[in-house]
């Protein structure tokens, strides 16, 4: 059952990957604001240190990173 669920999830991800022909509603040339350096967030060297501080002081952990891969706006 668990294996089947995993396969379904991965198959959906694969299908989604194959749908890159969908017309993006925000065109690449419209992503100037998203690519602005002020949207980039804190430097990794600083954020990693702060995450370490919070993880040491708190019982919670995980899901602290961004989504990864950026916004595709170079």
């Amino acid at each position, binding site marked *: 059952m668990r294996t089947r669920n*995993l396969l379904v999830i991965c198959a959906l991800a694969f299908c989604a*990957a194959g749908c890159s022909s969908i017309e993006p509603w925000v065109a690449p040339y419209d992503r100037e604001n998203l690519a602005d350096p002020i949207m980039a967030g804190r430097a990794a060297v*600083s954020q990693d240190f702060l995450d370490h501080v*919070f993880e040491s*002081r*708190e019982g*919670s952990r995980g899901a602290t990173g961004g*989504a990864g891969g950026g916004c*595709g*706006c170079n």
Partner: protein
Amino acid sequence: MIHAMRLRLARYVITCFGLLAASAGAGVLPEDRADVLYFRYDGGGVVISGPSMLVRKSIGEHVSVQANYYIDMVSSASIDVETSASPYDDERTQYSLSADFLHGKSTYSIGYVNSDESDYTAKTLYAGVSHDMFGDLTTISFAYKTGQNEVFRNIKIDGVKQNDPAFADEMETQSFSVALSQIITKNMIVSGQYEVITDEGFLRSPYRSVRFFVDQVAGTQGQQSEIYPNTRSSNAASVRAKYFLPWRAAIDSMYRFYTDTWGVVGQTAELGYVHPLDKPIWGGNWIFEGRVRYYSQDAADFYQDIFPRANYANFMARDKELATYSAVTVGAGATYEFKIERFPWLSKAQINLRYDFMTVNYDDFRDARQSIGSYGIPPPPELVRPAGQEDLYTLEANIFQLYISAFF
């Protein structure tokens, strides 16, 4: 059980790697940069300071590598240390190496982290994949991490600090996370992440004690070692949003919900604002940032500030990080960005200064120094409180960061 779980996770990651690798397109590697950070944390009797150096460099058009070297110099006289041990100094050294491989619209990442201190070593391996799709409006990511840790206990023999030859144990941790990033409008991007972490092995501190009533009416107490479960599984889910404001500024927010098999429930909320100045000053650009973070937590099921008697339960903890409390962190930062004409290979450089102030208010962790004393010395008679009736503990910390970044 852990072995079976690891096999399932590995199979899942490998399957997704294979499916996503079949796609084609164009992704983006992180930019080349170098950072040197000096940090200092000072709060609750603990001072941690040190440098961290990070270098990221592309090799060709499809590979980017990163190296990080980090040192924590710890001087601890925390409340736990005051009530049950002696102040100590220690040093933790950590290095990490990672590589990102770009293939079409997919980026594959692998990494290794090694952390060493006198009574704890940790080795962590991780792998992940992220994939851009829907015209690069959406990025989906998967990551898997596994860590092997060795736990020791320092004691003094003939006045020399060394590992207790009678104690050594291990802990294994694994994590799996999935994340989705989505461009909503030309000014807004949101992301969500879900992470499962499982730990197995020696999970408590080999130094910390719990306290219990010897005579509750008289307010007398005793101490014994903590007793923890050997496993812990946690679930954390977070959502983030970033918005580009009309006057060239950015606002971002984050919310995270956390729960685990120990009964800890935590919630985190964060709000940030980034504002660049319109005109250069001193030949460079200035960017200012303000941030506030709120955290609240319900205690672990087996946490108590003071137990009714010795050996009261199968599991007993008095780690204040497992107590009920709330915390607020307020921070501000400034970045000065400039170019150096004589170094044309340097696209830009930054000097960054950040300061954060953290306050933690505990609801069920009391200041046991008022009954036990500090380092074996009883409190002054006028300050003595019966066990279990001490003031609630509060912690304040100053967090300072200065770092220089160079972009190539």
